[in-house]
């Protein structure tokens, strides 16, 4: 997988940028605030149709402009994919894949494989369950593009059920609630099955990587805790999960009516990550947490590589400043050579050989 060129127009601080990166490692050097991360953010947006900083679309549009443009062409296995996105300051963005409107995120995910390492990745292990669910779902979408719309539909039915509970509380129409529960358990079981499948794919890879990325070995284990269901068997079929979810929803009905929110379903699940039976979130050292966070990203990269047969585009945003040199080099050793984009304020801290680029607010120049 390779990005041939990138164009940004009125995106973040860039009025206009054209960048033709090299096929291997691209190191983007520049002072803070020059827009290195914006370039990576633009590349990431082409692949996932969202900002990896979780910035709302409107904030991507340069001040004083009414529309940001991101365009880029990827190539993999001799098939090229032109992705063009217009993000208006107000209203809906428009996306074109090879000049045509794609049917959804799935179609882009199918064509463009990308993994980003971010300075905030520690949040994946330190912060709330939503971060880990987001990580699993992102990985699932890249492995099974169709999952994007499954997650979208599930999300929609949860929001409908929550809206009913919030508006009506105990006066909610029982048949409407019954029907929403039926829909929620059938869509939820599909989401849950995907989560369990992606856990089964990633967990052994992270466990194996942990030994390589950290100084001390440790036994890494994940527990997928499904809200209202406990720890479902990883081999469960979507059908049996649907029955379980339906029963759990029925059991939680009274409490949900009191609290006016849906407390059962994969939108409330948690993946507890353990090192030698200690919860990484609360009972691991900063170093152990960092090794797991890196392991999560490397595992996603490995799984994608394995599935697609070609290395995904890799974004490393200011990752090395957070790592001691030993860990940085071990990380690099874990990544097979594809196209890589690395940002850094200090050239010497990047332990990678490749094309070097100087980034300023005017654009990107070969260093």
């Amino acid at each position, binding site marked *: 997988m390779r990005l041939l060129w990138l164009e940004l127009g009125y995106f973040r601080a860039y009025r206009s940028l054209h960048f033709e990166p090299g096929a291997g490692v691209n190191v983007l050097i520049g002072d803070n605030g020059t827009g290195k991360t914006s370039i990576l953010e633009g590349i990431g947006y082409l692949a996932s149709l969202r900002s990896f900083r979780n910035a709302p679309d409107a904030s991507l549009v340069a001040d004083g402009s009414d529309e940001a443009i991101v365009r880029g062409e990827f190539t993999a296995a001799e098939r090229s994919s032109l992705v063009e996105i217009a993000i208006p300051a107000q*209203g809906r963005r428009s996306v074109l894949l090879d000049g045509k409107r794609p*049917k*959804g995120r*799935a*179609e882009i995910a199918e064509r463009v494989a990308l993994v980003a390492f971010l300075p905030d990745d520690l949040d994946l292990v330190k912060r709330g369950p939503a971060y880990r669910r987001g990580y699993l779902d992102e990985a699932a979408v890249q492995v099974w*593009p*169709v999952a994007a*719309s499954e997650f979208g*539909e599930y999300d*929609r*039915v949860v*929001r*409908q*059920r929550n*809206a*009913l509970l919030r*508006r*009506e509380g105990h006066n909610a*129409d029982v*048949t*409407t609630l*019954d*029907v*929403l529960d*039926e*829909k929620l358990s059938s*869509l939820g079981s599909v989401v849950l099955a995907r989560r369990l499948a992606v856990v089964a794919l990633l967990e052994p890879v992270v466990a194996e990587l942990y030994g390589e990325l950290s100084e001390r070995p440790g036994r890494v284990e994940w527990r997928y805790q499904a809200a209202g269901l406990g720890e479902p068997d990883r081999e469960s079929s979507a059908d049996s999960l649907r029955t379980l979810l339906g029963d759990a929803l029925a059991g939680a009905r009274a409490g949900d009516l009191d609290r006016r929110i849906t407390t059962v379903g994969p939108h409330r699940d948690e993946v507890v990550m353990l090192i030698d039976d200690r919860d990484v979130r609360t009972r691991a050292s900063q170093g152990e947490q960092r090794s797991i966070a890196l392991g999560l990203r490397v595992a996603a990269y490995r799984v994608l590589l394995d599935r697609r047969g070609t290395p995904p585009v890799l974004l490393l945003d200011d990752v090395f400043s957070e790592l001691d040199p030993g860990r940085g080099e071990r990380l690099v050793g874990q990544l097979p050579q594809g196209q890589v984009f690395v940002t850094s304020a200090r050239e010497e801290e990047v332990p990678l050989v490749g094309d070097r680029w100087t980034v300023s607010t005017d654009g990107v120049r070969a260093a």
Partner: protein
Amino acid sequence: MFEAPVQKLIDELARLPGVGRKSAQRLAFHILQIEEVDARRLADAIIEMRETVRLCSRCFNITDEEECSICRDLRRDPSGICVVERAQDIVVVERTQEFKGRYHVLGGAISPIEGIGPDQLRIRQLVARIDAEGVTEVIAATNPNVEGDTTALYIARILKPLGVKVTRLASGLPVGGDLDYADEITLGRALAGRQEL
């Protein structure tokens, strides 16, 4: 801001679905440029439609009489009702020429987010038609999305105890196309609803 009358039209046009600021501007300036008779014809068409068109008292299709042309047609089979969200969906089903029964327009789909529950739809009126017209089958032709599916399930729950057969349109592959052009969702649904040969 443009001169007040122009701006007023732009604002009105921009409130239409699918029309953004820029399109509204383009339309307004187009209307400004065309012959006055043409502009007047457009305005008259809007007013005439609003003044003459009403909802069918039976199925809530649009009509200019008490009942719509489909409900008045004695050759239509009254035992089957095809339930749709909006009146314009009737035209789509009619084009197939496969359905010989009558219709019922719900006026939307269940969507608590938008404050739409069963009471905001014409479900009560549908139930009343079952006995009155001797209906034995109801086809739920609501949209294949979360809201449409929910509405279809709701109708099934309400009508089944009345002894009515409730069916849902099958989701499947477009005919005449290649399998590899189908999107995953459609193909997934088609797989789930596969039939033995």
